[in-house]
């Protein structure tokens, strides 16, 4: 494993055929699979609004976005397969609750403003999390992340643009936007994971260079980025403790409800059961189709 440590020390990529510690391989598979699952489950909250989008342009943008997420899921599963994982097996683990996905997708999308706020805050938080992952020491993952981050930045700009447009609309629309911001702000902060003191895997992941910043560093970056955007938009972020700290050069902000995060992660969020049920239903309904494709391919090969 001298090669592995040398490669890491020189800030070079680990590639699929390189020797690597088994723990590194397992950690990478878990990280990439959770990310892939998040893309696929993440299609659902916004996907519910495609057929109901209020203009054809918004419908097209949303449909393209959800299609992008399916594409992200596809190439992330492919990256996991370079480590010896199997897509079908990973899907089974997701459906059986043995692997996680981002807790953010366990909240409901109640109005069309949620589509905009997911683009602005949720995709914004995802970008803060993911841009450093483009420098992940595992090559296939880092390269996949570059493309994903570019597309996520499209999504974020489109979400923000929808909110800007709605804020120029009627009072009802402005209330929809503020209500959506109120509901999504704290869950977005939780997307960075538990506080550093409570994140046991961080040290090893940073040493292996599969993680480049701590949870709290990224969370701070996201808050600092979002505050001026909220001002431009004309919405209030629902945190009375939020204020600029001249001394630190950062915003101070309140403490997320970590008990809520634990509940949602452990399966007790508002939409956990519905999300997994739908994914399982699609998988089971498609079983005969996949079996047919496999049978046809076997006949053609023989």
């Amino acid at each position: 494993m001298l090669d592995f440590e040398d490669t890491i020390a020189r800030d070079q990529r680990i590639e699929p055929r390189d020797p690597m510690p088994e723990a590194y391989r397992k950690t990478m598979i878990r990280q990439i699979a959770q990310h892939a699952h998040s893309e696929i489950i993440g299609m659902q909250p916004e996907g519910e609004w495609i057929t109901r989008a209020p203009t054809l342009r918004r419908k097209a943008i949303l449909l393209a976005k959800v299609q992008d997420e399916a594409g992200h899921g596809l190439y992330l599963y492919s990256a996991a397969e370079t480590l010896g994982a199997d897509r079908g097996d990973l899907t089974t683990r997701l459906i059986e609750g043995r692997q996680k996905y981002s807790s953010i997708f366990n909240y409901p999308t109640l109005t069309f403003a949620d589509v905009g706020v997911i683009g602005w805050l949720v995709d914004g938080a995802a970008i803060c999390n993911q841009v450093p992952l483009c420098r992940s020491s595992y090559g296939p993952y880092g390269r996949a992340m570059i493309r994903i981050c570019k597309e996520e930045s499209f999504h974020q700009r489109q979400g923000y643009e929808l909110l800007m447009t709605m804020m120029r609309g009627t009072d009802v629309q402005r209330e929809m936007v503020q209500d959506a911001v109120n509901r999504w702000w704290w869950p977005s902060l939780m997307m960075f994971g538990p506080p550093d003191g409570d994140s046991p895997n961080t040290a090893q992941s940073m040493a292996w260079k599969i993680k480049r910043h701590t949870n709290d560093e990224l969370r701070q970056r996201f808050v600092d980025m979002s505050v001026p955007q909220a001002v431009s938009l004309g919405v209030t972020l629902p945190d009375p403790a939020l204020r600029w700290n001249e001394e630190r050069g950062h915003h101070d902000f309140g403490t997320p409800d970590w008990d809520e995060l634990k509940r949602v992660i452990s399966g007790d969020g508002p939409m956990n059961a519905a999300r997994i049920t739908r994914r399982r239903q699609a998988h089971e309904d498609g079983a005969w189709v996949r079996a047919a494709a496999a049978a046809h391919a076997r006949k053609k090969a023989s």
Partner: protein
Amino acid sequence: MSFDDAYGALTDHDDDTRWAYGTGFADPLAGVPAAIPPGVDRAALAEYCLMLGDDALIMSHRLQQWVTLAPELEDEVAIANIALDLLGQARLLLTRAAEASADVAPAPAAASSAAAPAPVAASSAAGDAPVAASSAAGDASTGARGEDALAFGRGPAEFRNVQLVERADADFAHLVARLLAFATWRLAVLDRLRDTADPILAAVATKAVKELTYHREYAAHWVVRLGDGTDESHSRMQSAIDALWPLLAELDHEPSPLAPTTWRPEFNAILSQVLTAATVAEPAAAPAESSAAAPAESSAAAPAESSAADASLSTEAPDAVSAVDDAAEMSLPGATLPPTHRGGGGGGARAANFEISPLAESGRDGVHTPALAEILDEMQGLARSVPGGVW
């Protein structure tokens, strides 16, 4: 690792070409003259664009309902892609319809204020006056446009799509059967419209031909895989074709004078070729019950209760092309249908004046199954519920 500097990549926003047709970043009709040429009947152009646009819009809606429910991730991507292509076609065609004639747009009273009718150029006294260039794409600032007035402001009787596109799919076999028929038909029709007199319709057709070629190929491959795959998939594919067949007769009822009339042989030949490869039998005649007019389930992915499938299974493929011809001819109503009266008696009266036979119930005349009303409730509900909203 400067070669893959992600922060740099995030500011590289010049590659909008990767966005699918119709998402609003590039004008797919750039450079195409927008004026309606002298000699083109504006009313007829508007009506035909409306028909073709409605077909694409409603078919796209049914495909959108499959999102997150596809059997495999590759199909998630493909189905969303096809839905997006058709939505893009619908936007351009509805915009053109509104430009060509204000008569196709819903009356202000009927339209919600969320979708105020905004035909860019009302038909003027000078029929050949240049129309203000306005494509659906690339214009984010104006919320009220022709396409949205037409999509969100009309009721079911004002939609002109064929009933084929309305039907909900009982399972994936029903989806790919319907998509095969739709894409094959539409490709044959639009291929023949590439040199039609209106430059915008011709440009839309040219662009759409490339897209539909892929849609047809995608559907055909799945029909073959399912027909040939397992006993279960074969049985489901056969039921799907049986259920599809009665819907095909309507395609021959094409009231527009602009519609190509020579698409049938190509359509029949392609379907025969695909069904033969799939070892699926073509139904010799339409089933007795009128499944075309039956109310469809709103759920897009209800498991199929394949009932009569086994009974109609046949291992012998009959003469494929003639079977299609027979099925079509025995139910061909076109010549005996009353002509379409748009703007004459109003939407409700139109259907009532017909002597209703199953075959007179053409979506082209505004006669639809209850499935369309369900689709429109879903599609238009939000737009109509926020008066004055801008999106």
